[in-house]
């Protein structure tokens, strides 16, 4: 991990909505194939940052560089290299598992044969071959989230952005989900994940803690715990928030 180069570079990023400052002068880097946790309470500004990094929203000020491309000028190139899974649900409820994968693969410009092969492969790995023709709305939440994640990295992006991906699912499914994140990270995909579950922070290579639009701390979980003299990330967070 030491010699990896930066894949996300953010310098002096500011985002304002009128007079409200959602992101106040953020500067940080994310390294290639790292799992980077973006932590903070609701309303801390995590989703705003995520939307800017994934090209859904313009920054008010500052430089943002994703996979070597500038988010102002090379927006479409940025998009080719990223995957995104939103907190709101992003699969079509009235399409089947297979149809969803085919649709998203298709609009990324992947070839029909590639999509077909990779879909079969994917379903096998997820052990979802039996349900490939089931409508999304008939599946439990945890399954939907696994599929949504698979769809987000289906086109082999360099980075995947996950916005509170595990909201509302049981601990076991969360565990499974993190297994998938590790797997993706092992294939070289950089994972940028926002969460407000502090236990999940422990799974990240590095975390960044945000409060009221500002970065309060950024480091590996173990160093943060040492620095704040805390038993776990929960305590770290509470100490920072005070």
């Amino acid at each position, binding site marked *: 991990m030491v010699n990896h180069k930066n894949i996300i570079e953010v310098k002096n990023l500011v985002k304002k909505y009128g007079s409200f400052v959602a992101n106040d002068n953020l500067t940080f880097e994310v390294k290639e194939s790292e799992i980077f946790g973006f932590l903070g309470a609701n309303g801390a500004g995590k989703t705003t940052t995520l939307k800017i990094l994934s090209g859904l929203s313009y920054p008010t000020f500052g430089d943002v560089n994703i996979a070597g491309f500038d988010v102002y000028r090379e927006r479409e190139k940025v998009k080719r290299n990223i995957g*995104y899974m939103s907190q709101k649900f992003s699969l079509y409820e009235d399409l089947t598992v297979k*149809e969803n994968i085919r649709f998203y693969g298709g*609009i990324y410009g992947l070839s029909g044969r590639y999509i077909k092969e990779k879909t079969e492969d994917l379903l096998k790995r997820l052990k979802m071959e039996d349900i490939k023709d089931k409508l999304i709305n008939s599946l439990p939440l945890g399954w939907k989230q696994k599929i949504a994640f698979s769809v987000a990295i289906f086109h082999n992006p360099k980075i995947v952005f996950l916005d509170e991906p595990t909201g509302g699912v049981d601990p076991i499914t969360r565990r499974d989900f993190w297994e998938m994140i590790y797997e993706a990270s092992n294939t070289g995909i950089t994972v940028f994940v926002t969460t407000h579950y502090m236990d999940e922070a422990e799974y990240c290579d590095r975390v960044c803690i945000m409060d009221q639009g500002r970065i309060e701390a950024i480091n590996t979980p173990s160093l943060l715990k040492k620095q704040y003299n805390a038993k776990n990330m929960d305590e770290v967070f509470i100490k920072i928030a005070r």
Partner: protein
Amino acid sequence: MKKILYILQKEFIQVFRNKTMLPMIFGVPIIQLVVLVHAATLEMKSIDLYIVDKDLSSLSTKLVNKFEGSPFYTISGRSFSIDQANKEIENNKADVILHIPNGFEHNLIRNNSSEIQLLIDGINGTAANLINAYSISVISDFNKNIIVDLTQMPKMAEMEPISIQTSFWYNPELNYKTYMLPGILVILVTIISLFMTAMNIVREKEMGTIEQINVTPIRKYEFIIGKLVPFMIIALFELAFGLTIGKIFFHIPIVGSVGLLFGFTLVYLLVVLSLGLFISTLASTQQQVMFISFFFMLVFILMSGIFTPTESMPLWAQRVNIINPFYYYMRVIRMILLKGSEFWDISREFFSLLIYGTIMLSLATWRYRKVA
């Protein structure tokens, strides 16, 4: 290009999978077409006539018989009291009262002129107008016969120096259905295509799936084409279906070129669908879309000339009609179907809509943001 095909595929699956939507798109509008075409008629079929004949002479009886013999009138009652007759109108039992005063025959023969009275329920202005015209023509017909009988003069027609001969082109029987069917078809095709496009995109906004599409490298134009084409196809299919029904069940003449009609429809749909797209960029919920579209639909339909001639409207209304897509299409569909107008005849409408469609589409594309 291939990306567009994937969007088309997805849209069609979604439309055809929804079991409640299918009959809404293909069944209900056709039923509406069949039913409503019958409703849209201004021919009076049964006018309820109440008789107050105070004369009871041979002439007054003849006049009453003449009304009785007409297929348009039903005698709803008789009495000698006008008050009684007025009550009947008030209770909606009668539409019109024929009042023949005492001395009607006497006056006519002695004094060369006489008077009768028609009292018409005026609440429904349209119906009252028609009843008025029908009744007057029955009476004047009766009058002519009397004159011929009493004076032994040659036929009335020959007394009039100028003969007027009226012929109705393209629809000699003045069949309302021939006229209304294309009009109602236009409304149905427009409702389906406009609402489906606008609501479809806003639905993606509401469900959050639009965000997922916005992070992909798909180009704006690919997305927009992918969204417009399915509804264009559905609308064209709807038009073909409606025309077939019109042809088979209502014997609507299709005088002009069907190809020209579909070509023109394509340009029309460009306008309507771009409007739908534009509305969807303004709205954030389906409820808003529905309301905004509904408002414009209502205004546009009423002003389109489906019920009344547009040139009789006040000038400002005619100016507003420049941006009313219904106005162009209502004219052209009737011109092509019933009169056999050719491209040259409709070129002004064609190019107006083409320009209009291009402007709307650019506006909608410009307003549609992948990035906030």
